[in-house]
């Protein structure tokens, strides 16, 4: 069953077409990597899905429901959660409070003890339950990333968008991070991962979609794509960190 459908989506910034007639779909339960050199339009696409940007053309649907034209809070309540390229937590609030927010304002509208229980579950899943009452500002970088993921989980999302969530982690943390994402996928969440770390993409994604200059240049099995001359040319030809 198709969960997310991107259908001929276009986004222009002045003269620059950041996303150009892009189409692909995500099946329910899939983990798909979104690859492409820097500036190829990956984060723009994530912002289009999550409602931060309005598309200039095309349609995005989640389980048949149209997302295009909706505000970020409406997209969130429809079941889309995301993390940010630069981690965004609320440092003055406790871990529980940080994670409670989408439980309270998301589709399920929990409140009080119920919202706290959802928050505790989410913190447990990322391994932060022991520090639930600390303030978020006191966390290390990896733990802040974990917290941001817990917050996304507390929304009980159907689709999770991870924008370079694994970037900046050391090898041990990376292995932990990969295991964590895999456990989420095993619990049934559909995940779209923007990632430059090929080790993580190989480990997590059975399929990847590859963008270059706003266009889709590959949508195939991960191993096939990583050997695809078009994909290699896109990465190497434009001098990136891949």
């Amino acid at each position: 069953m198709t969960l997310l459908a991107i259908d001929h989506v276009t986004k222009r910034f002045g003269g620059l077409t950041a996303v150009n007639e892009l189409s692909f779909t995500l099946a329910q339960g899939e983990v798909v990597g979104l690859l492409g050199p820097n500036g190829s339009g990956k984060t723009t696409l994530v912002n289009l899905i999550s409602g931060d940007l309005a598309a200039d053309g095309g349609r995005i649907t989640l389980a048949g429901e149209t997302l295009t034209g909706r505000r970020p809070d409406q997209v969130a309540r429809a079941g889309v959660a995301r993390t940010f390229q630069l981690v965004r937590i609320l440092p003055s609030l406790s871990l529980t409070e940080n994670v409670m927010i989408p439980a309270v304002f998301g589709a399920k509208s929990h409140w009080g003890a119920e919202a706290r229980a959802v928050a505790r579950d989410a913190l447990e899943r990322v391994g932060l339950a022991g520090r639930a009452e600390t303030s978020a500002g006191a966390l290390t970088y990896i733990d802040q990333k974990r917290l941001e993921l817990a917050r996304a989980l507390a929304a009980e999302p159907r689709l999770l968008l991870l924008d370079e969530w694994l970037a900046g982690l050391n090898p041990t943390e990376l292995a932990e991070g990969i295991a964590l994402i895999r456990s989420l996928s095993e619990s049934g969440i559909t995940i779209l991962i923007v990632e430059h770390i090929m080790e993580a993409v190989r480990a997590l994604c059975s399929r990847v979609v590859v963008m270059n200059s706003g266009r889709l240049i590959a949508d195939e099995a991960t191993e096939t794509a990583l050997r695809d001359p078009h994909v290699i040319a896109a990465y190497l030809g434009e001098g990136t960190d891949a």
Partner: protein
Amino acid sequence: MKIALSLAALVALALAPFGVSDYGLGLLIGAVTYVTLASGWAVFSGHTRYVSLATVAFYGTGAYTVAVLNEAMPYWLVLIVAGLIGAAIALVVGLSTLRLAGVYFVIFTFGLSELVRQLITWYEVNVTGTLGRYIFLDVSAREIYWQMLALGAATIALTAWIQRHRLGLALRVIGDDEVVAAHSGIPLARTKLTAFVLSATILTLAGAIASPRWVYVEPSIVFNPTVSFLTVIMALLGGANRLWGPVLGAVPLFLAFEWLSARFPDTYPIFLGLLFILVVFALPDGILAGLERLKTRKTEDRA
């Protein structure tokens, strides 16, 4: 326990007019008015950190509504109409401006106060042909005090309620990070607008209740921008995001400015400016947060 204590304090304050002189009653009215203004301002600005300088736009509108309507309808009805006008202005202004962030919002709200003042001046001069108006209302100083006390108490009760409900959490998250708020499912515009309208209604009612004290009103008196600045300093000094913060800032500052403006009528705005700078530098989160920090530092020292 806390509620019982607050109610006891409220009863004591309600009985206070019987034990003071006319001058004392004047001070009480002034202090309670600024408590109401600072607490009402904080309903919107306290958690969202949108610093509004529109306080006097609403406060003055309240006073002017009474000046215009006090002969046309009963006093209680005038108050209701004033509240509705304040809410309506906030709704229109809010819809068009709550997308502004940071300093743009501050400047806009300051401009709004001036705009309202100039519009009313223009209207009075060109349409009605009078600039000043008299308010002859049979409302005693004691009654004004009690009305203002009731409004202040209602504002604090409303703040306590908001802080415990979804709206309070939503406003706090918006104050910390609007992007996170939106992606957590919080409707930004609706949430901000709700708080802004509630706050504006309180500020307008405060102006309406205070107006009979003036007897004579004209735009340059009721739309005095100092009211907006004082309200902000008071709320920030006490701690704008705490329930009792605005009270704690408003009472001592009101008394201090009463004394200063009597002793140094020409130079006292200098003290106002200095204090503003001092608050922002030394106590950016207010006295209450500062005290808490001291407390945790002490317990940490002991540990």
